[in-house]
């Protein structure tokens, strides 16, 4: 048990028997009232987000989690499939629990996953990933304006704004948080 005031982003809790991960936490002290925390909790199995307001002194049931490395294999539109790099067990994770993650899932890449028992509660995406440009618009001839940009699509389907000199088949490094182009990678 922990006090609600101790819950932080990333804390895993059991609510009515189901695991949830705190994705947002805000302290609130209403005028002339006790201290409360306002939480947004996400269910890793359904993607459902719960808003919960608890008194800082309320008890909450926390759960012990463990990080493991998983290698990404593929997805079938419903699940992501990973392999545990130590045990070689195959693990499936519902895609709807991690919206937009598909754009950052590269075959063969290793991701850190947070487990509670055998359930994946969270997947950490590296802050920078190198992608291959799968589709690139042709740069318009005569377009020599400095700083001109265009859109390309990576092998994972992510659309990124890049300088016009980037061509199909080239590798680019992308900031996964902002989805911004960082640099061209020479292979």
């Amino acid at each position, binding site marked *: 048990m922990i006090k609600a005031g101790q819950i932080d982003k990333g804390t895993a809790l059991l609510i009515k028997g189901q695991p949830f991960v705190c994705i947002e936490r805000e302290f609130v002290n209403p005028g*002339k*009232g006790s201290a*409360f925390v306002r939480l947004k909790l996400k269910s890793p199995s359904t993607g459902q987000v719960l*808003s919960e307001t608890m008194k800082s002194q309320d008890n909450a049931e926390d759960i012990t989690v463990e990080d493991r490395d998983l290698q990404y294999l593929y997805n079938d539109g419903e699940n992501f499939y990973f392999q545990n790099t130590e045990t070689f067990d195959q693990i499936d994770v519902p895609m709807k629990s991690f919206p937009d993650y598909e754009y950052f899932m590269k075959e063969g890449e290793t991701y850190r996953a947070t487990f509670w028992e055998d359930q994946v509660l969270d997947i950490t995406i590296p802050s920078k990933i190198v992608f291959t440009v799968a589709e690139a618009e042709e740069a318009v001839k005569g377009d020599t304006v400095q700083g001109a940009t265009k859109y390309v699509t990576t092998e994972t389907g992510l659309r990124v704004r890049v300088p016009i000199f980037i061509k199909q088949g080239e590798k680019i490094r992308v900031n996964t948080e902002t989805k911004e182009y960082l640099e061209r990678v020479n292979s």
Partner: protein
Amino acid sequence: MYDFAAARKRSELLMNIREHFIGKGYLEVSTPSLSPYLIPEPTIKAFGTRFINEFEGSRDLYLIPSPEIFMKKLLAAGSGSIFQISSCFRNAEQLGDVHNPEFTMLEYYTVGADDRDSIDITIEMIEKTKLRGIDPEWLRNKPLIISMHEAMMKYAGVDMDKAESIDYLRAEALRLGLNPGENESWDDTFNRIFLTYTEPSLPKDREVYLTDYPDRIACLAKHSEKGPTKKRWEMYINGIEIANCYDEETDKNETEKYFAEEWEKLREERSGTEEAIPPADPSFSSLDIPQSSGGAMGLDRLLAVHLGLNSIEPLLLFSLSDMLRQ
């Protein structure tokens, strides 16, 4: 590391506020940060310290959570309208986006005014003291004045006319999927509903004056003739609580009753804990406070919303959480 551009904005805002109130004939006052007694407020934890006096006896002293205790003495002594910008201290506050245990408060008392007048006074002050070259959206929109009754109905479906009964309020909390504890106080159950459904739904694109708070939440505001409510409002901008205001209680019996009940509650809750139990000011209940409205505004928060920030931390040159990290 230090954001001097933000420090300049803070200086401009404070200067504008001083000029505004002085121009309106308010007297700027400066009252102590340390006091041997406070107004009993069970929900506010005080910082305690000790005054060492070798020959006449040492005394416990407390950092003020607001200068109200002193400013009301000045009002009672005939100061007329007064204001003050000062550091205030609240212990056991969580360190976070809009909380720092030491913060800057504007406290302004207008003699002859009531809570409604103070809405106009506050709207005008905020408009007139805005920062040069900064024109936030919330300041361009017309402020919203909404009663707690209306807001609780609109955003939580709770009828405050029936909410005097703890059973009704508890049933409503359960209907809304909340988990009020067994034997939870009326205030806590009300705040659970208010903080989950009502407060987050208030419009964020303008000043919101939430008026007529429930009578059951004890405070030194007058009872309203309109219903079981107090003549008290809180003001929000961008979902952040910026200010509160009372039509100040002038009835000595009511003040005495508040002091007795709240001090008892405070003493009971804190006995056996490490929390300070500041004595209640013995002379406060006998003050002849004139008809006046009193507002208290968090200036770090006001500056944050002027600058489009959701946090006061970047605006504090030395935030406590920074200092503790070192």
